[in-house]
């Protein structure tokens, strides 16, 4: 049953953008397959994260 659910998620992700985040108890946020939209959100949540700021800048390049 669990596998069936997973397959449905996977099928939908072939058509739509999918990113995932994991928020740890200490507040640290892990993310993968970061879309341009999510990069902007993460950069705003932690402006001191230089690497994420650079990814958010690339987001703006992509959206021009």
């Amino acid at each position: 049953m669990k596998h069936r659910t997973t397959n449905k998620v996977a099928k939908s992700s072939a058509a739509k953008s999918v990113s995932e985040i994991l928020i740890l108890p200490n507040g640290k946020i892990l993310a993968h397959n970061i879309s341009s939209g999510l990069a902007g959100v993460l950069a705003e949540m932690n402006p001191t994260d230089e690497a994420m700021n650079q990814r958010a800048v690339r987001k703006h390049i992509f959206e021009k």
Partner: protein
Amino acid sequence: MICVEPKPLFRMRQSRASLARERAIRARAMLADCRLCEHNCGVNRLAGETGLCHVGADSHFFSAQVEVSDELELIPVFAVALSGCDLRCDFCITGASSWNPRSGAGFVAWEMAARANAALQAGARTVMVLGGEPTIHLPSALELLSLLPESAKLVWKTNAHGTVQARELLDGMFDVWLADFKFGNDACAQRLAKVPDYVRVVQANLLWANAQSELIVRHLLMPGHAHCCWRPVAEWLAEQMPSVKVNLRAGFWPAWQARRHAELQLPTSAAENDFAFGLARALGLNLIS
């Protein structure tokens, strides 16, 4: 009288698209005795047989989207993730899709090329083919390449477990190899990914890729594996390819079947991260993010 056949002043270099088209045909024929990865199953995928990866003759993809989570010099990247993998990493972040060759939608090269071209025109810097593992999908990957513009910067994101035959088909096809070096010893590779002879195979692939194209090596730092896996990987890179770009990733997240292994229940600790990055700096590795 001496008659000499005049030599051409130059030979027209065959385009990447043209080469890819030829090699896609060869790659598809090779599925009759599949030895694309170092499991060397030798199954006839064209006849419906499957080996350890369970991938048949056709490809599926579980994701195709523009992302900004890869190396800064590559993003925004249009990333095409093909379903199925020849490794069985219990901690795989996309395990459900990566292990299932039927996950997602059927791969149609011209449709994907149209999406990739649209992304490039919208500002994507690169097109990345990944998985799962793309090596086991070489025919489909090459068919896609045959439909992409020569100017497109192409990235091959691989587990570096391919064979010499696979590398021959890949020669000159991709601008950048983005290769994982996950384990620093064969025991951890066997226990966590069910793959034998891992280190020798990956090292051979990395040495070849470093000589043929731009190479970026990735290592995902795993909890409890800083000394047994990262240290030997880092030391080998420092010795064999000291200037290669290395992306040491500290964002391990206990995904998929990681719970099977006691040490993989949590993210890496701050102390492990400090050790790993300190070692990289001490060895003079060319770290990128």
